[in-house]
């Protein structure tokens, strides 16, 4: 079977929109199928791989930090990278460099690279299809 290559463009900042979770669900399905996956993170989405995202306790939930197990997008992305690799594919993550700079989120998880719009175009050209999930 021919390996599929898909590119996703994400734009929403972490902890702001259910669109991000939906995008991760789509990536999860594709990763389990062994697809070659590219993500170009644009604008607020560059925060998704920010390494300093931190879990916190939640008194309203009555749970400490361990019990709360707060979801962190950086952990989701690391898990998706591992899943893609384990299933014979790969997840390549590229952050828009200027977007990273203006937000001060240059400290990214392993596997997240810095890039430019040229990278997006090249990734899209190499892909079977590209899905833009933009901030509304």
């Amino acid at each position, binding site marked *: 079977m021919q390996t599929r290559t898909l590119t996703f*463009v994400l734009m929403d900042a972490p902890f702001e929109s259910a669109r991000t979770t939906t995008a991760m669900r789509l990536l999860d399905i594709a990763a389990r199928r062994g697809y070659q996956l590219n993500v170009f993170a644009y604008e607020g989405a560059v925060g998704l791989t920010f390494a300093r995202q931190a879990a916190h306790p939640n008194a309203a939930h009555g749970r400490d930090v361990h019990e709360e197990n707060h979801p962190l997008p950086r952990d989701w992305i690391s898990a998706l990278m591992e899943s893609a690799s384990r299933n014979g594919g790969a997840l390549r993550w590229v952050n828009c460099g200027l977007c990273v700079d203006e937000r001060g989120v240059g400290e990214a998880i392993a596997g997240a690279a810095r890039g430019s719009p040229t990278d997006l175009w090249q990734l899209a050209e190499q892909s079977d299809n590209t899905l833009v999930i933009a901030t509304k």
Partner: protein
Amino acid sequence: MKTLQIIRTAYRATIEEQDDTVVWITRAMRGAGAELDVLLTGDAVSYAVQAQDSSGLAFGGWRQTQPPRIAGDIAALLAKGVSVYYLAEHAGERGLEDVPLVQGVQPLRRAELPALLGRYDRVWQW
């Protein structure tokens, strides 16, 4: 690979970014050789208005010296060979029928939309 960029959300952080980020990335990718055109729909049809001016923002002693110049950015896209369309009905609904627009932007009727979409390998909706 010819791609149509559909811009619907307007003035998305344009003050902070000093531009529309989708117009900006379109221009940047065009510079890298991408074949791209733009369709303005919804509130983004306002991007075609020539006389828009968002200058003058000030907070205390801070002044914005380089405000976004959306009409100029649209004109720059056209100068780079990017075709820019706007949905005529959406412009009419917003009272823009007789407002001077950036020279070179092209009206598109809703009925013409399927034919336009059919001319592109990919359609990206922002």
